[in-house]
């Protein structure tokens, strides 16, 4: 699984190409008179069994079976095993795809990064199993706060990220606040009849519209806001300002007060 090339993620959407890869691989195997184990199929199947994934359907060794196997491996390699959320790798793939989209469409896309405040204390006080429980509970809360099209990822120990495509600048704060409050008000069971509450600090930045930026820069900008939220006392949301977020409702009202704008209504 270590060696699973990210380009397989692309192959996954191109069945003819994938099939020809299998044919080439198989030819190569026959040419070299290698035993089937050279394809490390056994290892792959073992990984899947361990993860509780059913063996692919179809005749073992057939293209359909191999496709199922690769799909399962791709899925496995893009998820965080503990929470089932997207892992860091697939998060970065999704982020790169979003940058491509935003550069072409000019749509607003928001990246939120967050971590659990004082997580070490949870671990130290209640043990690592409780810590894992907290991470799973927070993961669940994040998933409940966003749309199906959004990607929620666990990017590190107690660190999470959400990629929100097509999220207008006016709504960013609302979404981030919803996440923050949801976590804050969620009791988590850490021991029999023992509930605790945790909070998250959230930083966010919009993808620069019409610009082909990089995942690295986008993450960096969101991270800077996360540091701000932490520095200002935690359990806070800090989004990089946008033009829209700088103009209050009162200012907008006065700006469009006169009748000349009525034909836009």
């Amino acid at each position, binding site marked *: 699984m270590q060696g699973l090339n990210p380009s397989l993620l692309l192959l996954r959407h191109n069945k003819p190409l994938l099939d020809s890869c299998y044919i080439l691989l198989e030819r190569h195997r026959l040419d070299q008179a290698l035993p089937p184990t050279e394809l490390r199929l056994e290892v792959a199947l073992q990984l899947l069994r361990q993860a509780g994934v059913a063996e692919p359907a179809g005749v073992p060794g057939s293209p359909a079976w191999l496709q199922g196997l690769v799909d399962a491996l791709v899925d496995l390699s893009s998820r965080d095993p503990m929470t089932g959320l997207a892992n860091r790798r697939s998060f970065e793939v999704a982020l790169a795809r979003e940058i491509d989209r935003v*550069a072409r469409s*000019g749509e607003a896309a928001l990246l939120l990064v967050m971590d659990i405040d004082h997580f070490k204390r949870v671990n130290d006080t209640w043990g690592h199993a409780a810590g894992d429980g907290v991470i799973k509970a927070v993961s669940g809360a994040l998933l409940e706060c966003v749309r199906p099209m959004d990607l929620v990822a666990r990017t590190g120990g107690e660190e999470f990220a959400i990629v929100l495509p097509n999220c207008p600048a006016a709504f960013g704060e609302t979404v981030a606040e919803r996440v923050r409050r949801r976590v804050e008000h969620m009791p988590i069971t850490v021991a029999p009849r023992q509930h605790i509450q945790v909070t998250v600090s959230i930083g966010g930045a919009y993808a*620069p*519209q*019409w*610009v*082909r*930026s*990089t995942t690295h*820069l986008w993450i*960096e*900008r969101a991270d800077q806001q996360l540091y701000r939220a932490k520095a200002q006392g935690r359990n806070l949301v800090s989004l990089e*300002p*946008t*033009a*829209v977020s*700088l*103009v*209050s409702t*009162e*200012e*907008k009202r*006065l*700006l*469009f*007060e*006169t009748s*000349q*704008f009525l034909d*836009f209504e």
Partner: protein
Amino acid sequence: MSLPEPHITAITSGKGGVGKTFIAANLAAALARQGRRVLVLDADLGLANLDVVLNLFPKITLHDVFSGKAVLADAILPAPGGFHVLLAGSGMVEYSRMTPEVREQLQKVIDEVAPQFDHVLLDTGAGISDVVLYTVSLAHEVLIVATPEPTSLTDAYATIKVLATTQGRRVVKLVVNQARRPGEGRTVRQQLQQVLDRYVSPTLDTPVRLDLLGELPSDPAVREAVIKRQLLLEHMPGTPAAIGLVSLATKMIDG
């Protein structure tokens, strides 16, 4: 850089797609026609498209100057319309964020070219990203382009607000593009000024003033020129928008 009059002008807009680059190119041509030496610097580093508007295929760009592959003098190219351009070129992705190095290089380039021209127009990106704000900070005067649409106005207002509060700008010039009737530019200016007076100026030591440099009427010839990648001023000089651009240039020279 102690010239008698402000001669580095940043052309910016709150919102993209309001005609910023089109105006920069044609305003440069109008200024050149009145005998001025003009340079347009493609300062929209992340998504440069001055070359597209002018139908140029530059071999040497600002990117080459930044990366040390070319000297500045070779990157200054003559453009149709009798002015010069300094194009950003592709490969500027790494400059879509304002690092201290980019900052220094941009400052150096501008310091070096400014004495050779009567007007340097900085065609900046849209919005209030740090690249745009930094580029604007290098200019003597700021020209905001807005259309009379609510989103464009909101974003223009936000930009003026940021420039007034973070850069100490007290005078900002406005061009209203795609005006649907004569005098709409004046109405738009008044509207913006009214909100600035109420919500921004009270927080400042001296009030911020918005000057209307002019309005350009909504004109189908503009679209035609853009599609053909031609300068409106050269190919359709008698059209209402072209006449508007000439009067913008005159007003800019007269101050």
